[in-house]
């Protein structure tokens, strides 16, 4: 495959378009980490969460594949996650995943979703999936994970 085509596909896989700086400057909101309702996981430490989001842990304890869903660059919650979990800006995030793919450390980048509804629909459908949505948008079809033992509504929750 020609490098240009591969690069374009990588960009598409990472949901890279003209990354709006406005999204990063927008006010932050409380983020809920959600998984499929049938997932046995209900609590993660922040370190475990970071490993999953960084692509360093690609399988759940039951050996099923982790499918990481990430919002497209226009979303406010993406800016929060990049800041709090990845500790990266858009460029660093893009380069991080491209580097991981070129080193064959991951088979693919995070899967892109374009809205909270799409994210929640896919979480409800894909057994091993995990994503982040605004805490206020969570529906009953998915399971909200405790991070370091805390739910989004608890004081001291890390993704506020």
């Amino acid at each position, binding site marked *: *495959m020609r490098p240009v*085509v*591969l690069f374009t*596909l*990588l960009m*598409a*896989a990472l*949901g890279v378009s003209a990354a709006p700086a406005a999204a990063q400057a927008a006010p932050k909101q409380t983020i809920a980490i959600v998984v499929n309702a049938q997932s046995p996981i209900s609590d993660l430490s922040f370190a475990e969460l970071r490993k999953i989001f960084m692509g*360093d*842990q*690609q*399988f759940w304890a039951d*050996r099923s*594949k982790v*499918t990481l*869903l990430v919002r*497209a660059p226009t979303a406010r919650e993406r800016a929060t996650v990049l800041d709090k979990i990845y500790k990266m800006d858009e460029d660093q995030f893009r380069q991080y995943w491209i580097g991981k793919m070129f080193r*064959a*450390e*991951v*088979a*693919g980048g995070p*899967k*892109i*979703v*374009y*809205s909270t*509804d*799409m994210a929640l*629909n*896919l979480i409800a*459908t*894909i*057994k*091993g*999936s995990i994503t982040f949505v605004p805490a206020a948008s969570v529906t009953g079809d998915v399971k909200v994970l405790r991070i370091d033992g805390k739910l989004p509504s608890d004081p001291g929750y890390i993704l506020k």
Partner: protein
Amino acid sequence: MAERRWKIRKPKWLGEVVIQSLAIVFSILLALWTDQWKENRKSRELSVISLRNFLTEIQQNENRLDDALPYHKGLQTMLVQLDSSHAIRTPSEFQNEVGIDGLRAPALLQTAWLTAVATGVLTKLDYETVSALSLTYTLQDRFREDTRTGMQSVVAASNFGPGGAAPAVETAKNYIGEVVTSEDELRSAYAVAEGVVRKKLESMVPPSEIPPQPDSASAAKKKGT
């Protein structure tokens, strides 16, 4: 009398000439045999390198399909629901609920195949192996071409006007259905090709020199991932 005549006719140097001729012929044959042995060894080494490359590439492509398949199956389920609920009415809703980039097929590698074709190493492999590899990469090419044309249809359908939402969702649903089916088929083809290449490699080198069987989860655990 006859013995005496023979002794007279036989020159002294004849034995030496015969011995030297034999030595020369033997040297030439030995050189040819050594050359042939070296050539065979080189071909064998080239074949082993090529087969290892094929095995690694097939495993990487399998991983890429394994990575994309759950997501595509999720999209398929979602599109079936959207198609029956008629929830999408505008192109922006289509973009928000379906997206376009997520429908793309994974980028699959074919470096090992192109290298083998360019270097002519395929001529040094047996028919069964070449046939399995050829079929696999032909299916991979067809998958890429089908998804390319399918994506063009989805993109064209996504710019719909009034009343065009249902056909757009149906086009996307049909397309992702074909992608999922093709990914499943290609996954099976990779499994067969991997078995053939592995068997061939096992007949050529010790097991320790063959890339291990892909048990993704346990391999990942060993690597701490």
